[in-house]
């Protein structure tokens, strides 16, 4: 057992404990804005951590970079500008909401370390363009790393567990990890590429059971240009379908992801496949609920599911809320910030909502 622990230590990484510079995700803000707000609330109010949300931040260009319209020099310098904002705030621990951004900052910093002339070139470009200077981050973490780090402390505060309230059995979860979190720099992910544990650790700490299934590490299929261009979307949905078909026999109660894109795709492609082919991957025609780790943390802590943003999912989450025993007010689901009822989305033709 000692040897196993020692070996496992090699698959862990240093995660900063406080004083974070939060770099927002274009995709997360667009599709699940409640998740970012929930993470900030958990950090400040539950864990008492110091985290800054600088209003002058912007895209890291990750999607533009990986769809090959933004050159690497430009991307490196845009990342450097974000680091200059972190320097202005006197922080050194970068937390990137987006998994693409996480992979990108690791790639950029590793490039600077291995090719110092690239670092000097970036410093020159940034200063010439903006008069700014920057430092390399002392630590780069993904927010899911931080939730993992504090999962036991958060678990003690949680009002609910990942247990079926009727049967008492652990809920069965598929965890899906963004490719750019663990496949590019294995040593930067908890558990490495082969034994990813950042989400499994949360699920197990909070009472659930992790499903291992054949296509567990398969890409969800975002594929950058393969989704951005309408003509290419068949690739994207085919990847997700491969995963759904693989997980279906294991009857998951929900899917948990740490990547903003993956969460959106695994939700929306279930809808698209249902409408195109009349197929869902549960036994009720409703699909398998897909949650972000921020949403899961929030609802188990007792936050209103409609304040964390579950109403923005196309596959409805009520089946999971019912299993856990989390109460919710259906009348509150489609209310806006003004308190006004905003009508309801139309119902899909096949997917039951």
């Amino acid at each position: 057992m000692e040897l196993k622990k020692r070996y496992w230590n090699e698959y862990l990484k240093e995660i900063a404990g406080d004083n974070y510079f939060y770099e927002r995700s274009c995709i997360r803000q667009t599709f699940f804005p409640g998740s970012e707000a929930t993470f900030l609330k958990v950090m400040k109010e539950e864990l008492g951590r110091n985290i800054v949300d600088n209003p002058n931040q912007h895209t890291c260009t990750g999607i533009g970079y990986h769809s090959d319209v933004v050159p690497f020099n430009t991307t490196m310098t845009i990342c450097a500008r974000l680091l200059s904002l972190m320097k202005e705030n006197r922080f050194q621990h970068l937390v990137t909401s987006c998994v693409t951004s996480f992979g990108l900052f690791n790639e950029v910093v590793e490039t600077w370390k291995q090719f110092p002339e690239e670092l000097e070139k970036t410093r020159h470009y940034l200063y010439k363009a903006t008069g700014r200077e920057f430092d390399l981050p002392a630590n780069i973490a993904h927010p899911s790393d931080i939730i993992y780090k504090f999962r036991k402390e958060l678990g003690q505060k949680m009002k609910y567990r990942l247990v079926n309230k009727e049967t008492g059995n652990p809920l069965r979860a598929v965890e899906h990890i963004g490719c750019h979190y663990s496949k590019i720099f294995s040593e930067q992910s908890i558990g490495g590429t082969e034994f990813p544990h950042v989400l499994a650790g949360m699920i197990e700490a909070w009472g659930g059971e992790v499903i291992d299934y054949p296509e567990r590490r398969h890409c969800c299929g975002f594929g950058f240009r393969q989704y951005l261009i309408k003509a290419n979307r068949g690739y994207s949905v085919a990847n997700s379908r491969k995963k759904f078909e693989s997980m279906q026999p294991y009857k998951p109660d929900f899917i948990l992801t740490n990547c903003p894109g993956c969460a959106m795709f695994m939700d929306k492609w279930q809808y698209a496949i249902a409408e195109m082919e009349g197929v869902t991957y549960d036994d009720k025609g409703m699909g398998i609920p897909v949650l972000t780790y921020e949403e899961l943390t929030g609802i188990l802590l007792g936050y209103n599911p409609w304040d964390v943003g579950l109403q923005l999912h196309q596959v409805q989450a009520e089946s999971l809320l019912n299993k856990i025993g989390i109460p919710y007010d259906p009348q509150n689901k489609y209310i806006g910030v003004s308190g006004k009822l905003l009508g309801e989305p139309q119902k899909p033709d096949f997917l039951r909502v």
Partner: protein
Amino acid sequence: MGRIYDLLLKDVRFQEGLTACMNCGVCTAICPAAEFYNYDPRQICNIVQSKDEEKMLALLKSDIIWYCGQCMSCKSRCPRGNVPGLIISVLRKVSQELGYFTESEKGRQQFAIKRTIGENIINIGYCVHVEKMDPETHPEQGPVWRWYVDHAEEVVDRLGGNYKKKGSGALRAIAQENIDEINQIFEVTGGSEFYGKIEHFSQEKAKSLKQTTDDEIDMNDYFNRVYTENTKDHQK
């Protein structure tokens, strides 16, 4: 060395991405693009490693280099630490710099990406944004997306955001001085010049497809064409 290989070598990512590929094919075994497209990353590494200018030129003009989904599963498996996904990025860069991307159906799509993601970055400081994802061009987002777009400010602000307003928060309006600095960075680093090349070569292609030499050409038509065109048999 040949012209194309020289251009590839200048990119630090190429130096990092290809070191003595031994043709084992493990990258192809794990590659999702190889599953669903007529795509073989092993073969691409082979061609590049051979430094055959004629074959590399054919690659730059082909659909093949545009099939990769950039998941980097290849990196996780290569026994030599190569990164076919990174080599693809360099090939795509050279293809666009030299204008060869307009020779292929998939390559021509770069114009649409530049006009959407590319221009979002320099105009609003986001890669993607609610107001740029029209439900009409994104039916796969479902009816909940239509509801969300119709009530974006009410919904985003309920969820703790700050929709298109000053200050911090999700989907805030990014202040102009930040947008200005982003544009200055693009100017200084060659990003603007790269965007200009994508536009220029795409306009030349649009003219040749319409068989006209008009200086003014409707690029909206060309956008719609490259965004939706899927004529060849790209799949296995």
